[in-house]
């Protein structure tokens, strides 16, 4: 970590603290209270936060740095899941080989797709990646059924060979014996916090992924990718072949997606083709944009934000709403609920779509830019300062290059 700047190191520390303490931080409301439904500190959801965080971090290395908008990244996630489940079927229920293989296979897959797709740029690139992903999805559903088990999805079963596992090896996904969904629950008064093995495995891997992404962002390689984004033609005219750089970025982000897919399978040994559908690719685009493309923290924020609200909003139904607004006069209460009703519960996607449009229209830099703007409001004083001070303030307030 020597080569990180102080600021980046601080950022990494903050993220590390937040992920490690997440089971506590995300459970601010006492269990059993009316607000407990806003708690997000249970393993299943937290695992999704960090896994999709990994997915979005990887996507951001491609989209945020090079500006190539891929609409087919879910294919790598799906491939990762399938290979992880196959490892658990053939070798061992230990998650290490499964995760390793998912990264490798997704990497190889992305070399092939990237090599072909990166011959074009702009919307053609988007369409090519979309076409490859839809092809994989359709094949996984039809011809490749012996490998993917078609619509049912690939599952583990007791009759699988598992040649590395001994006779009494555990029959659940584990890390050298530690069961993935094993959890300890600690009670502090009314609060209860669940610490699960699976979550901490994912969290550690995500921190690693985050660290690598910081290094990529700050490296000469990352600088080259940004140069490709701002003016690829110019790079070509200076006699530089940009293809190896963009391909490397594509493969790195494909491997991140494969890692996320492998982790999904490691948490719940099941892989289905719907993970590869283009709506899933769209989701990771949403996460990255919502958080802030091209920023370090943005994708993680976006992934957490979307997964959290997906979970919370889809749980809110009319009864919950009646509970909240019961203090109002009846007519007003019913009216308000009628207005809110389409946006919650099953209508969560409507809220997501609206939110996404608002972000693209008003906040192209995503949540991170929103945070910076708010920060600037509090520093507005600087504008009224004298010229020398104003210059200094402008320098200080210029948003960092990330």
């Amino acid at each position: 970590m020597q080569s990180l700047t102080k600021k980046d190191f601080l950022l990494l520390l903050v993220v590390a603290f937040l992920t490690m303490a997440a089971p506590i931080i995300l459970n601010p409301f006492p269990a059993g209270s009316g607000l407990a439904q806003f708690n997000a500190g249970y393993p299943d959801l937290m695992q999704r936060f960090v896994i999709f965080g990994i997915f979005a971090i990887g996507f951001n290395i491609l989209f945020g740095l090079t500006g190539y908008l891929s609409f087919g990244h879910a294919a790598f996630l799906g491939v990762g899941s399938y290979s992880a489940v196959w490892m658990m079927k053939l070798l061992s229920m230990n998650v290490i080989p499964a995760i390793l293989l998912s990264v490798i296979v997704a990497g190889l897959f992305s070399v092939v797709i990237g090599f072909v797709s990166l011959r074009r740029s702009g919307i053609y690139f988007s369409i090519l990646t979309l076409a490859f992903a839809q092809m994989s999805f359709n094949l996984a559903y039809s011809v490749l059924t012996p490998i993917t088990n078609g619509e049912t999805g690939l599952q583990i079963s007791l009759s699988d060979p598992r040649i590395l596992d001994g006779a009494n090896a555990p029959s659940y996904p584990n890390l050298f014996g530690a069961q993935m969904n094993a959890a300890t629950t600690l009670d502090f008064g009314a609060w209860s916090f669940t610490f699960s093995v699976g979550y901490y495995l994912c969290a550690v891997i995500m921190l690693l992924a985050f660290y690598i992404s910081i290094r990529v962002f700050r490296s000469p390689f990352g600088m080259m990718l940004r140069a490709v984004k701002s003016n690829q033609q110019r790079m070509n005219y200076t006699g530089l072949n940009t293809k190896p750089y963009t391909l490397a970025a594509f493969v790195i982000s494909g491997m991140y997606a494969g890692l996320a897919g492998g982790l999904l399978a490691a948490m719940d040994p099941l892989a289905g083709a719907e993970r590869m559908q283009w709506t899933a690719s769209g989701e990771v685009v949403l996460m990255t944009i919502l958080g802030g493309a091209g920023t370090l923290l943005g994708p993680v924020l976006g992934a957490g934000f979307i997964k959290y609200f997906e979970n919370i909003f889809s749980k809110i139904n009319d009864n919950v709403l009646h509970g909240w607004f019961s203090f109002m006069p009846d007519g007003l209460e019913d009216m308000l609920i009628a207005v809110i009703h389409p946006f919650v519960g099953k209508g969560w996607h409507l809220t997501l779509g609206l939110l996404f449009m608002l972000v693209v229209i008003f906040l192209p830099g995503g949540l991170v830019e929103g945070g910076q703007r708010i920060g600037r409001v509090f520093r507005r004083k600087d504008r009224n300062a004298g010229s020398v001070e104003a210059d200094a303030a402008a320098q200080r307030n210029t948003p960092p290059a990330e």
Partner: protein
Amino acid sequence: MDAILLQLLNGLDKGSAYALIALGLTLIFGTLGVVNFAHGALFMIGAFCAVTLSKIFTLSHKASEPSGVDFLGKPKYDDILYIKDWFGETAGAWMLDWSVPLSILFAVPIMLAVGFVMERGLIKHFYKRPHADQILVTFGLAIVLQEVIKYFYGANPIPTSAPEAFRGSFDFGVMLGFDPNAIIYPYWRLIYFAFSALIIGGVFAFLQFTTFGMVVRAGMADRETVGLLGINIDKRFTIMFGIAAAVAGLAGVMYAPINSPNYHMGMDFLVLSFVVVVVGGMGSLPGAVLAGFLLGVLESFASMNEVKNILPGIDQIIIYVVAILILLTRPRGLMGRKGVMEE
């Protein structure tokens, strides 16, 4: 031979839908330079116009006089459709039967209005933004439109039937001297093909033979110069956006009897239509139409058993394979012009 002809016919109706959507997409792209990911949603809204009109036609009230007794011995009141009240028994029945073709009249103003609102309210602000932003905001809009439709109409497909007269199939083979029952083809699909040919022809004629069309074509070639000549090109482009929306909507209206409308049909078609547009060449109207029919027919050929036996699964991926091959060998698509989308 007859099998090949049958597949050719089968490909035509899907190809017509692809061609119509791709035509609208290209119109928008060629005039406004905007990549509209919400175009599939417009197709879906068109289909739901047909659903809505047939729902309106089936609105009913209870008869005032009982027509008999039901099995519990209580007096039974028939449901009487409002349209039969208003237009008489036979005309009402006819209107109900012909609700899908009638929805064309109903859908055109709605789709034009949707198009105008979309362009003025949202797309206008995205001309100067990067293509990625346009894709993203229209993608968001597509989600919103889709969810709104889902909220009002539910998630299940809603069967909508063609008029009685066109409901059957006819034996195309006999007409051409093949064995009977060799080529059976539903009437409605033939109607759909004829209808889309009419629309495509209409759009081309409109662009080619009217002054308005000429100005629009001039604007597509060089927007700035047309603007300097004192022509309000923005207004005309907005109208073209409305027309493109109407084309997509009409494609949807007439497609309703072929495939029961559901809320995600737009997205299903959108992905393929984009592939069609890119294969045809961004910005080329004839290219979009050609590629639409070509891919539709190829898709239906690939689903022949003879082909599937040699290359299993080819029917699922043929369109994408063709798209990838064409994009790699002919970077501008079949008929794309130089300098479009090549920043």
